[in-house]
């Protein structure tokens, strides 16, 4: 009897995946035998399903391990099974159910396995979504290295990672190195947004003149209006705030700054 392959269909990696009661299902395909469940059951007792077609075998496995949420890593493993057996992924419902449709999405799933291990796992845990794999797939080697290092050094949140991948993609023509260097990244962004960076640095300096009140803009400087907030817990706070409201010269400087930068 040919040896049973217990790896190909193990897309769902469950610990202690065996049963003391039920025998595993094994599917014969040509000369080979594939176990479809209870992968830690290593025995010669099994239920043979040689009447199954390729799609039946895969669907059995998907139904058996049906979970509410399927991870990107699992979807990539399922796609690998499709490739192994020349199954059309559009015939497998789980992909569409998880927003994976079309050639680019399938290619992105295939690409997932080529990612740096830490990056792949991080994207999986943070549930980043297939569109970010699609972006990574199209980046050059040096940009991928930067993202790998960013993940390794910063252990970013999902949102920070999304923003960073988007940043690398958007500014790719201006990033020529292959090392994550926060200062370099900031200087590249600043260079492309010089007017905004200059203005915001100067505005920030003027904001530092206030400690009891906060002075800010609420519409991304589309209008020159300022929002001034004061938090008062006692009369001392009250007088401190009043004094700062009277810093006429600072307010004038702020409005002059906005005028110089065409915001006002």
């Amino acid at each position, binding site marked *: 009897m040919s040896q049973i392959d217990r790896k190909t269909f193990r897309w769902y990696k469950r610990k202690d995946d065996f049963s003391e009661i039920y025998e595993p299902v094994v599917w014969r395909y040509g000369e080979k035998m594939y176990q479809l469940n209870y992968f830690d059951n290593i025995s010669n007792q099994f239920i043979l399903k040689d009447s199954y077609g390729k799609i039946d075998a895969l669907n059995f496995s998907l139904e058996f391990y049906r979970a509410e949420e399927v991870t990107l890593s699992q979807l990539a493993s399922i796609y690998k099974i499709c490739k192994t057996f020349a199954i059309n992924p559009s015939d497998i419902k789980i992909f569409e159910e998880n927003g994976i449709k079309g050639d680019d999405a399938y290619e992105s799933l295939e690409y997932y396995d080529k990612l740096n291990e830490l990056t792949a796992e991080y994207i999986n845990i943070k549930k980043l979504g297939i*569109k970010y794999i699609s972006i990574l797939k199209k980046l050059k080697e040096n940009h991928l290295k930067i993202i790998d290092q960013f993940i390794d050094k910063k252990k970013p949140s999902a949102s920070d990672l999304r923003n960073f991948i988007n940043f690398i993609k958007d500014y790719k023509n201006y990033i020529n190195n292959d090392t994550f260097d926060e200062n370099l990244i900031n200087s590249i962004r600043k260079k492309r947004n010089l007017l905004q960076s200059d203005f915001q640095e100067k505005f920030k300096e003027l904001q530092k003149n206030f400690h009891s009140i906060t002075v800010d803009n609420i519409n991304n400087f589309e*209008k020159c209006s300022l929002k001034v907030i004061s938090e008062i817990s006692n009369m001392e706070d009250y007088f401190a705030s009043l004094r700062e409201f009277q810093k006429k010269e600072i307010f004038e400087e702020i409005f002059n700054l906005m005028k110089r930068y065409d915001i006002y």
Partner: protein
Amino acid sequence: MIYIEKSAEHGHFRKLFDENEIPYEFIEDKSEIEDSKKNILITSQKNRFVHSCPATKEYRCCNYMVVDAVEGCPFDCSYCILQAYLNHNYIKVYDDMESIRESILDLSKKGKFRLGTGELSDSLALDHILRLLDFIIPIINKQENIQFEFKTKSSNISNLLNHNPKNIVVSFSLNPEIISKREELFASSPIERIKAAKTLTEYGYRVSFHFDPLIYCDNFEEEYINLLDYLFDNIEQSSVEFISISTFRFVPELADIIRNKFDNSDILANNFIKSMDNKMRYFKTLRVHMLKTVYYHIKKNWDTVFTYFCMEDRSIWEKIMNYDPGDRENFEKYFKWYRS
């Protein structure tokens, strides 16, 4: 490929294609065709064919009206709103010619209007197939209350030379070559568009130009000034009806579409802020700089052409042009057509 849906099987376009030996296929329903820009779908359905150009109350807009006889475009511009707005890639063409004609005539009875195509499609790109100019221009030639604009990024103008230019403006969107090549896939080059505009002016057409969207790039000033200088060298000021200028702005969901679809695009390599109508725009200081660069160079060379900003804040109008055009109806009165 051209597909004619059952609803349009006895319509205007079937007759046109038969007369001109343009091949097509009949289908029962649009679900039968591949959703691709390479496909044209002729259909007939109830629609509001003539309506106001989508404006925003937070920024100054004119009172332009649009005709939506076609939805979809064969060009592939990275910044195009159609990618986020339409739910199909194929080019949908409405075979409801009588409804379209009636809508235009009804509008004409209500007063003076500027009307045009090119909002959800390119006006000229497919004219050698659809020949909508043959339908629209004779209607417009007879109206005294409508100025009709065909807005385009193509140089497909030959059919225009078979028609009467009365009440017609042909407008060309322009960006420097370096931007057009990267961001306006399959469109004619800006040089070709300007040459086409020149041919049209020699024939007697009024032309206009839309510097929209202005896209920030390395050597922005030099690139746009060189483009403008080429324009000034080739077109007579007296033939130009108006010019519009506006910077790149987009609905937030367009960013992901651009990232996934356009590998070579540079258009998102800037900080964008969420502006008052929830569209993403360049930071105001940069925007003013870009608008000033283009506007002042136009004024230096073409001082009589009416030039306006599309969807911009009134403070920017006041700062650069020294006036605020006001709300839509008031803004419209600044157009030469309205004053004539």
